[in-house]
């Protein structure tokens, strides 16, 4: 088995071509000087990134308010999701790894649960529950509770419902490797509880905190299924892309995809770097 056959090697090569073909096609046609995202090749252009709409009927991504607001909406969701995922994930990790209480195994199982629920079901259940909650509260308080209606706030909650599981697992795995005697040593040398946390525990957890934050950022930015059910009038990027893909789009969608790929590549390499320093 140490000397792979030619057939096997050919299969590996074909596999990687298969893997990258769609991405390469998307990237290349972002530069095609054609009003349609399809062959034939009509020459190189940057119009679909920076065009004003003078050459082609539609402007490039960086000048089109539809794309720019979508990206903005995605960030409005992804940044709070990532921050909350790290903060709550750290607290959850402490509960899982450090606290002792009856029913802990049950809680640990419950925390894994969101991973086996289809995203669409998560979306509709949160939508239905918060609508009922909002109806009840609005009748009682006699005021509008827009935060509980479909919109970016609800999208944040919907994405958190399963991203929290991921961030908790990442941070708990790191906390499990922590040598408790480091904390005791710091305490023994005269540090207060707060100082121990600040100077010993959090610096140790930092790679996992950064990693969990980046993963949460990516998962939030790309989530489609749950977001689709909870979105209101402000569409994040995947929702806008979905709409354009159904209606038939200009190569601007290729351009925005390429930008997404570059951003994701940058975040993924950051993540790879932090997990390398973790080892």
């Amino acid at each position, binding site marked *: *088995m*140490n000397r*792979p056959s030619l057939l096997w090697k050919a*299969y*590996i090569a074909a596999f*990687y071509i298969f*893997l990258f*073909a*769609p*991405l390469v*096609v*998307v990237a290349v046609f972002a530069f095609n000087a054609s009003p*349609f995202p*399809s*062959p034939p090749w009509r020459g190189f252009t940057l119009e679909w990134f920076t065009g004003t709409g003078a050459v082609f009927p539609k402007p490039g991504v960086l000048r089109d308010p539809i794309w720019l607001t979508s990206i903005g909406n995605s960030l409005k969701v992804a940044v709070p999701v990532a921050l909350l995922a790290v903060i709550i994930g750290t*607290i*959850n990790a402490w*509960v899982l790894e450090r*606290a002792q*209480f009856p029913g802990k195994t049950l*809680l*640990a199982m*419950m925390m*894994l*649960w*969101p991973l*086996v629920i*289809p*995203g*669409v*079901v*998560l979306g*509709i*259940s*949160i939508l*239905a*529950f918060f609508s009922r909650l909002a109806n009840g509260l609005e009748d009682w308080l006699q005021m509008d509770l827009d935060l509980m209606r479909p919109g970016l706030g609800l999208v944040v*909650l919907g994405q*958190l*419902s399963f991203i*929290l599981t991921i961030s908790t*697992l990442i941070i708990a795995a790191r906390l499990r490797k922590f040598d408790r005697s480091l904390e005791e040593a710091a305490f023994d040398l005269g540090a207060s509880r707060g100082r121990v946390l600040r100077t010993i525990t959090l610096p140790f957890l930092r790679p996992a905190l950064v990693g969990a934050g980046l993963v949460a950022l*990516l998962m939030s*930015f*790309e989530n*489609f*299924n749950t977001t689709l*059910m909870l979105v209101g009038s402000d569409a994040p990027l*995947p929702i806008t*892309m*979905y709409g354009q*893909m*159904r209606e038939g789009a200009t190569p601007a969608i*290729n351009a925005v*995809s390429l930008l*997404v*790929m570059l951003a994701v*590549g940058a975040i*993924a390499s950051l993540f*790879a770097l932090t997990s390398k320093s973790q080892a």
Partner: protein
Amino acid sequence: MTSARRLTLFLMMAPAILWLGLLIVLPHVEILILSFSERVAPRVYQFGFGNYLEFFTEPLYWRTFARTAIMSILVTAITLLLAFPIALYIARVARGRVKAMLLLLCLLPFWVSELVRTLGWMMLLRETGLISYLLRATGLATQPVELLYNDGAVILGLVYGGLLFMIVPLANALESLDPSVVEAGYDLGGSRATVLRRIVIPHAMPGIVAGSIIVFMLTVGNFATPVLLGGKNGLWFTEQIYAQFITRFNWPQGAAFGMLLLLLSSAIVWAGLRLTGQGLGTTLRQA
């Protein structure tokens, strides 16, 4: 001392309890209740099994459900077959930098949004797409060829989306196989096929189960790929849920469909774990 400690514990557990309670447990209780309520008059609902009866009596609904389940199993099987040689190569043949590169290259496309990947397949497969264009350019076809909007395209897109989640747990499981065990298998007279069947595959079983379960769950719950690559012929069950909730605003019916999808996904996960004697926790950790 103890009461202060208890207060700390309570405060630390509060986020987890709020999260699981408000975002997971209560919402599921809500759709469970919703799925059993029937509309008897505008804005008047009462308890009943009508939504579930509707599912069984309307052929479109249960056929879509069955189709989703069967195609998801098929997609999982194809993904496993395609991924196994790759995982075996990464885990047991490739060394050092090549190994790291191969794994990284596998990971890369999957960090990119599902929609971008689907866009790529649409640009390749559609009538005005690259493959159709190349076929005409080389003279293999005289007419534009539509490769999109059929079951093949849907399966292709779903398999593509599932590959990574199969390769990583498989490679992890194969990685832990001691090379001397494989050598002992050959030494004792085993052929390539026997060693693969009797030693390598049984060892990789936890990875196979983990990968299959994850791929199945992702496939059953997928929305964008079947809708965009299958078009009108996509007929995926998640689409029915979306239609009931968002288009028709018939939430009780949509909730019943949601419960059925959850049931299907949980049943297959449970059966997979049961058949192979694996635990959910260890399986999820594999991935």
